[in-house]
């Protein structure tokens, strides 16, 4: 199953750490979205909408993570 794993996400996290202030901002916002998403219907809806948009982009993207279910 190892081949179905995606190292990209870990790389992005490391990139955010290496990225100093810019990276801190990204991580801060990411966790902010998560926290807000727990309490607010509006934020949750926004987050889902944004995710849906990204999913469309990801489908056209060859580098998107491979899902085991597609094989």
């Amino acid at each position: 199953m190892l081949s179905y794993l995606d190292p990209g996400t870990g790389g992005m996290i490391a990139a955010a750490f290496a990225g100093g202030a810019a990276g801190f901002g990204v991580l801060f916002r990411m966790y902010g979205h998560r926290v807000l998403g727990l309490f607010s219907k509006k934020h949750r809806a926004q987050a889902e909408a944004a995710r849906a948009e990204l999913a469309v982009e990801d489908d056209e993207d060859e580098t998107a993570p491979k899902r085991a279910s597609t094989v």
Partner: protein
Amino acid sequence: MSRVYRDGDTVLRGMNAEAFADFQHLAATRFFSAAVERGDIVRTEVVDGVELPDDWAGVLRHERIEVVTYPYEWPFEMLRDAALLQLRLTREAIAEKLITKDASSYNVQFAGTRPVFIDIGSFERLRKAEPWPGYRQFCELFLNPLLVQAIRDVPFQPLLRGSVHGISPVVTADMLGGAGRLTKGVFTHVKLHARAELRYADADKERDVKAELKRAGFGPGLIDAQLKNLEKAIAGLKWDKQRSTWSDYGDRSHYTDRDLDAKDEFVRVTISGAAQTPRLVLDLGANDGRFSRTALAAGASLVVAVDSDDLVVDRLYRDLREEGERRILPLVLDLSDPSPGLGWRSRERLSFVDRVRADLVLCLAVVHHLALTNTVPLDEIVTFLADLGAPIVVEFPHRDDPMASRLLARKREGVFDAYDLPNWDKALERQFKVHDRITLPSGTRTLYRCTPR
């Protein structure tokens, strides 16, 4: 997609529509023309008026790199300079909305002592909210090998030769252990990278961290900050080792000056007196590059100087870089175990002998080491020299030579009885035509000028 192929001495790259569009963006940037002018990127032009197969949109012609080398043949400082070039070009590209889609040390070549980026197909248009696709590869093939050597004093060449994919973050973290905690870059690019990779590896997880990061504003600004961080980490790395088996050889205190002068003269006459001056010279066991320099002074245009001691080669590279001498290419290579074919079908990376075709080979003060230290039979040594397919200048230290007898003194009596001048002459003449031979003033070494039969 693009694909490189060779047509005789010409290096061509066929590109599909998307790759060709990426190239046109690249060609229009200021940084590209400036980098080509500086010699940082290989000179490239569009080939017009050729008939293209269906799936190709264009063909490029690259300037040919005279001698292709691989990172497992470079000493520490060469890999470090190649890494800095990769980072600088990627940062310059980001400023003009392009990015390198990979970051393999195989994408850098050396024109003498000058690193040149050769993979034009690596540049593509920057996509919004995408990470740097080359990050992991950069760590595996540049940063981690350098860290392992700088911190642990483990030479990276055998590791890179062991796997063309390089050294993964997880393996590097294991190799470093607790060492290097304070070295810049180790925490983020090795430890955290390794842990985050394991932690977020499962793409089927419910939470899509990648998408969350993108939504939180992961973008070009962050990539540039990441590259800057890597640049600082690499710039701060130093390999401190100062002494090795061969590092004090350069003073050559075991030679008489008259012998050295005679050798210099023999090499000089071989090159300047040749009907056609040899352009590319291969200097085996080059050490501090004394005879490589003699070859240049006599008219050669490029010398590949190989030695098995990576500290000696590292030092030679640093000296040449400081002097601004670009016509010597120093490489780490063990003649008793030269680079084999590696990678895909064992043909992705060519063996040293298949790759480097010189016009003249210098093999000075080497034969006794191969014969006595590596225990290679004399006729096998000659066969190896014949494989190189070029005229040679070769030196044979006799049994009573001080250096040869030092090696012989440690051997059991009788085992190396075959090591003597008549046997060497016989082996050599079987595969080479000897044009000239001299005995050095000390009387214990013979020099030959010969061509393969």
